[in-house]
């Protein structure tokens, strides 16, 4: 964890943000957190998280929205399910992280590169119903702009190797035939989910 210190200001407990999070699809599971701390060290990326999941959840309860949303914690989640498997209260922490990522995307907390990756991935997926890795990569670097230019170069070697071993298809897969219907289903589900949440 990067942040070990206690801030100097006085923390004001305020229920608004907690309610917002509890209102999300999996957010209400957070109510069950007993602050045991197993998740804090069960995560594949715990060493680089701003806050451990446990601490993030304590901040949610305390109503500290800015700190929560600006933290890298949920973006670091790799969906490896370890925390979910271990959580003694059965909290699907991974799914909560999905919700927090979703909230961040929706509300514009998108500074981390992962945000761009998620957006790029979804755009590529939505266009075809299947993923084209080349497409995702291109979209991602477009979104990130010049600041990630160095990274493209760094990936070059690996890319060439993959290409030479036939691991990097140059052409996108065929689109799903029922793509239109698929997207109708998704739209309906999003609509129903919105209704259900409110």
């Amino acid at each position, binding site marked *: 964890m990067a942040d070990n210190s206690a801030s100097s200001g006085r923390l004001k407990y305020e229920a608004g943000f907690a309610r917002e999070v509890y209102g999300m699809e999996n957010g209400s599971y957070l109510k069950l957190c007993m602050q045991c701390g197993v998740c804090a060290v069960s995560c*594949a990326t715990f060493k680089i998280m701003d806050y451990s999941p446990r601490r993030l959840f304590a901040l949610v309860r305390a109503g500290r929205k800015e700190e929560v949303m600006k933290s890298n914690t949920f973006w670091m989640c790799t969906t490896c399910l370890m925390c979910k498997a271990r959580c003694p209260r059965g909290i699907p922490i991974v799914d909560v992280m999905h919700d927090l990522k979703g909230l961040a995307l929706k509300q514009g907390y998108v500074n981390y590169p992962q945000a761009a990756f998620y957006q790029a991935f979804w755009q590529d997926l939505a266009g075809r119903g299947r*993923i084209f890795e080349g497409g995702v990569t291109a979209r991602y670097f477009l979104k990130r702009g010049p600041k990630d230019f160095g990274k493209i170069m760094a990936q070059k070697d690996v890319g060439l190797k993959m290409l030479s*071993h*036939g*691991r990097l298809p140059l052409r996108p897969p065929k689109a799903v035939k029922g793509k239109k219907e698929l997207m109708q289903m998704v739209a309906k589900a999003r609509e129903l989910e919105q209704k259900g949440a409110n």
Partner: protein
Amino acid sequence: MRYFFYPGCSMEAGAGSYTKSLEAVARALDIELAEVPDWNCCGATVASSVIGDAPAQVMSLRNLAMVEGSGLDVVVACSSCYMNLALANRRFQNDPRFRALATKSLAAGGMQYRGKVRVRFILEVIANDVGFERIAARVKRPLKGLKVAGYVGCQSVRTIPWEFDDPEQPVALDELIGALGATAVPFPLKARCCGASHTLPQGEITSSSCRDILESAGEARLMVTPCPMCQLNLDAYQSEVNKAYGTNFQIPVLFFTQLMAVAFDLAPSTYGLKANIVAPGPVLAQYGVAV
């Protein structure tokens, strides 16, 4: 034995040799795999975050709805696809609210699902339906003395019910390695995450995880995995790990189906070892396999 097979995007693309070797091994074991018609992407780890869990899971259910009438199980070989399909299916079966939502949503695209399909992970099918004894009996080229690290990865093993395998220290893959005549080495991190979802945005995270995993494999000469992302990260990025950490890993990372094909003595052309970036040739040569 007949199943529907859900390949998913990776197995269609970068992990083509996984699909290829799986099909070869299946043929050898008289397993018939029929591709799920007009399947769509499961959403990987991304869709849930962008559009929400329920809509993402509806996408997965569409794939199951495609084959429900057949009465066949759907076998998945990609960890991430398996996780998404299985969890969506489980939620559909157990959460009445989601079931209603999903039913309506599928109907909006003209489809219907009743929750009858079983979603199965390839390794579990091999363990339970085929059985390691039958595998061992099919082995023509016992891989005696070969020390193999069975890297299960994270998502599949923690989606499968506990009763099948331990979610943190799974043993099924090790048993399979044993059935092929090879030796599974102790491998504490065999179910640790490789960090796949960070490969593109923050590759250094993936490299760090991969280094730990490669190190944990100890004296293994070879690693096998049932996950396309894991294979890609550990194989294609192994040189990046060596670059970043000054290490000198040279561990070929195979799909477990490729190793099965080797032990079954199938024609090398059928299981795509050429796609492997860290060359398995030197290790396999002593078993008479020409790559």
